[in-house]
């Protein structure tokens, strides 16, 4: 009995609660990045290696607009729209001509785009991290911490964007077009759905969502040309763990992995906590290669 109560007392409840919150916040941002990635993969079998750079580009556009206008919300909106347009242009010029080719072609192309965008950002903005000022700096006390409200806002906004997107997919005509194309692109075409434009639209939406997460996350880390790398790596893990192309699975996996990492960070260095994600990735690939959060296929 004593041992049990000693064990129970040794559990750092305060830290667990704080890390739950942190994990949820990161998880929601990650979900926003990963939903675009999984959607693009699900609908056109394109593994978009440039996704992290669209995230980074969104953050930089946020920096520029914020400096010019002083409004965080305008920065968020413009960054989303501009990167969505850039995404559409990229898709039309580089990916559309490759439809029907070996997936290796699109991997190389998106990898190339990611290098170009990264080096463009380095050339344009230099190696010093830029800062996005958070729109408000209120705190509330959580045990020994002053927890910033902004982090809660990130989670809520990401959830709202994902939720809005889900409603669009579920009820909107274009949402039905997207889902029909994901399931059977030939039949979708035979039903009069302009599949090439659906591809472009999905790429643009994914790019816009990545950009929005870049701006939202900017205040927490600082904006650099290489900030997309960490995220795209994690987003790929999430997309695989959630089941390639499965939107709901990716969202669940984002939160799951972020929570695991956050809890692991209680006991180990946060840099080492990343290992947890890879362990989950490897276990998933070994035992549930179709994804953790999807029903076992028959």
């Amino acid at each position, binding site marked *: 009995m004593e041992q049990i109560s000693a064990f129970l007392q040794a559990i750092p409840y305060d830290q667990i609660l704080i890390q739950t919150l942190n994990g949820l916040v990161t998880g929601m941002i990650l979900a926003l990045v990963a939903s675009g990635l999984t959607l693009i993969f699900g609908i056109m079998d394109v593994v978009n290696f440039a996704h992290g750079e669209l995230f980074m580009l969104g953050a930089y556009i946020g920096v520029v607009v914020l400096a010019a206008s002083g409004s965080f919300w305008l920065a968020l909106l413009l960054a989303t729209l501009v990167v969505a347009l850039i995404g559409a242009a990229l898709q039309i010029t580089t990916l559309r001509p490759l439809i029907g080719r070996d997936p290796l072609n699109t991997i190389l192309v998106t990898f190339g785009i990611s290098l170009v965008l990264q080096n463009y950002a380095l050339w344009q903005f230099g190696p010093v991290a830029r800062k996005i000022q958070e729109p408000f700096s209120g705190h509330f006390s959580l045990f020994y911490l002053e927890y910033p409200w902004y982090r809660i806002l990130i989670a809520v906004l990401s959830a709202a964007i994902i939720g809005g997107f889900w409603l669009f997919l579920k009820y909107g*005509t274009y949402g*039905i*077009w997207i*889902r*029909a194309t994901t*399931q*059977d692109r*030939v*039949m*979708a*075409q*035979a*039903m*009069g*759905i*302009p*599949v*090439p434009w659906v591809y472009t639209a999905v790429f643009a939406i994914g790019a816009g969502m990545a950009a929005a997460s870049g701006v939202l996350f900017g205040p927490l880390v600082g904006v650099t040309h290489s900030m997309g790398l960490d995220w795209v790596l994690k987003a790929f893990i999430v997309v695989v763990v959630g089941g390639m192309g499965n939107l709901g699975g990716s969202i669940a996996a984002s939160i799951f992995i972020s929570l695991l990492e956050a809890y692991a960070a209680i006991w180990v260095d946060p840099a080492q906590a990343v290992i947890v994600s890879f362990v989950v990735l490897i276990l998933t690939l070994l035992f549930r290669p179709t994804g953790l959060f999807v029903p076992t296929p028959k």
Partner: protein
Amino acid sequence: MSTADSSALVEVEDIHTYYGKSHILHGVSLRVERGEVVGLLGRNGVGKSTTLKTIMGLVSPSRGKVLFERNPIAGVPAHRLARIGIAYVPEDRRIFRLLTVMENLRTGLDRRGVSDERKQGLLDKVFSYFPVLAERRDQPGGTLSGGEQQMLAIARAMMLEPKIILLDEPTEGLMPRMVSQIRDIIEALHREGVAILLVEQNVPLTLQASQRVYIMEKGCVRHHCAASELRVNDPMIQQYLGI
């Protein structure tokens, strides 16, 4: 081969189609008049489905012409053809399995320039033909039985208000009761003035439902005549379709 007859809806002239290196169609020619039901008979693998796919723009012919209302359409993407009046019901039905029945219908129904009343009218019409679809409107397409999926595939094609439906083996694997329902729907569509190019293995049904039939063998049309000229046990049928 080409005629100036204005009643021709679809004209296929000497098309050659390849899948990779295999030569599937060796110069197929056929025509469908406005509002006409035309049967396309032949054994498995003679190129009937490929003919339909070529008309629908899902495979492009390497040679030959496809005309729709006398405009060349070979090479036009399928989604444009669907908008100008060609609908396709594939052999394997290809229901969007994760979409509900209603959403499956909406893929063809949500077009620009269609008023809400007309949409409702179309839905009412297919639900009166296929009451079971109305009952299952919120159920995912993949949960329907084979016969129900076939009805959904036809209903979905009707949402496009097509001038012609390319109907590929609609009765394949269905129970006799379902087969007669499919025959009824073909007749109803014919009465409405929708042309049908019907690929079937079921010879009695084809001869009954069609006005004219084409018989294919090895990627070519071997014979064509009015459906009334053929009997189910005709030597012609024996020769090209018998086992």
